[in-house]
């Protein structure tokens, strides 16, 4: 019984929050011929590419350190 009340309460809360949060976001996204929607999409693509490069960079740093260890060990 308590679970049902909690579930209904969450559902209603969700609707209320959704109604007010959507207005602000929608206003921006639908304004100016939806250019801002396009911008967000392009931005996501761009940031995704940069994060990918950043991850490769970090992996290379680790590989370089491993190689240094390997070279040091074999020179001993």
């Amino acid at each position: 019984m308590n679970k049902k009340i909690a579930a209904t309460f969450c559902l209603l809360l969700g609707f209320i929050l959704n109604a007010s949060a959507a207005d602000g976001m929608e206003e921006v996204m639908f304004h100016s011929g939806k250019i801002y929607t396009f911008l967000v999409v392009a931005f996501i693509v761009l940031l995704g590419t940069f994060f990918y490069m950043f991850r490769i960079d970090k992996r290379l740093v680790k590989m370089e350190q491993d190689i240094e260890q390997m070279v040091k060990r074999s020179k001993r």
Partner: protein
Amino acid sequence: MGNFKKYWWKLLGCVLVAFSVVMSFTTPLAAGVAEVTPTTTKKGKQLITIKGYNAHFKSGHNRFWLTGNHHTTLIPGTIKEIINENLIKVEFDIPEQLPSNNLALAVQSREDGGAVLEAAVFVSDASILAGMTTAIQMPMDQKADHFTFPFKNILYETIRNLNFHVTMWFALIGCMLISMIRSIQHLSSIEGLKHDRSANEGVRVGLLFGFLGLITGSVWARFTWGAWWVNDTKLNGAAISVLIYLAYILLRNSISEEQKRARIVAVYNIFAFVMMLVFIMILPRLTDSLHPGNGGNPAFSNYDLDNNMRMIFYPAVLGWILIGAWMINLRSRMSHINFTIHNHE
């Protein structure tokens, strides 16, 4: 955070490119004159229909003139009918004496700044008095009160491509410069192939930007000039430059002995860079060219690239060069690790 010294320029590249992308998409175009009808008219009271772009003709803050002799002869217009924000009918009382048959149409708006359409109206029965001016003078180059990109009649919104197409070519030159420096370093170092490997990766990353520049330029050309390719000095020069660097890759593959290959290819790389500069930058400026920025093409030249555009364009160029440098850095390190692993055992 001790590593920040090592990667600050990579972060800067990302920030600058992201900034230029956001501004390229969200900055509006300045108000301009898209079309004027009729294009041929006679002297006397004439009703001219003016089609604007991003204009606000309903605001009541617009003034119109037909101008001649570089905006020193001014014929004021009376607004007869405002159809919508971008369509208006204005009446001009065209006198008999004019400095030339071709009159420009100029708009001045308090919010949107000034806009001019050159050679908008041809007055067939004017009597020419070259060099005449009128008593009233108005500055025709007022700026809009908000941040805008310049309006150019052939380009319209594609002027935003400046931050994507042209930056690709600058990234190409940046990458090839790095590659050439590595080649010089290789030739002046005693042994080792580290610089040669970096030079190789530099050429490969540069070629990526070269191809992107060619493709983006082709698409841009198709929808502004009407053709995917024209026989134009700059375009041919750019294609030749890319071919020169493809030949670098071929040259590398044709020599199997490592030390000899590195030396020959390094010399070739230095010449390749110089030739690229000749083909892309020097030759196009010496001949007539359809391509903007060269050969007297009125589409846009350095004088039309206004300060707003420069504020976005220069950071974008630097950003993409840094991104190119980062890509070369990553690939060089990969190549070096590969070499170390294979030559260690």
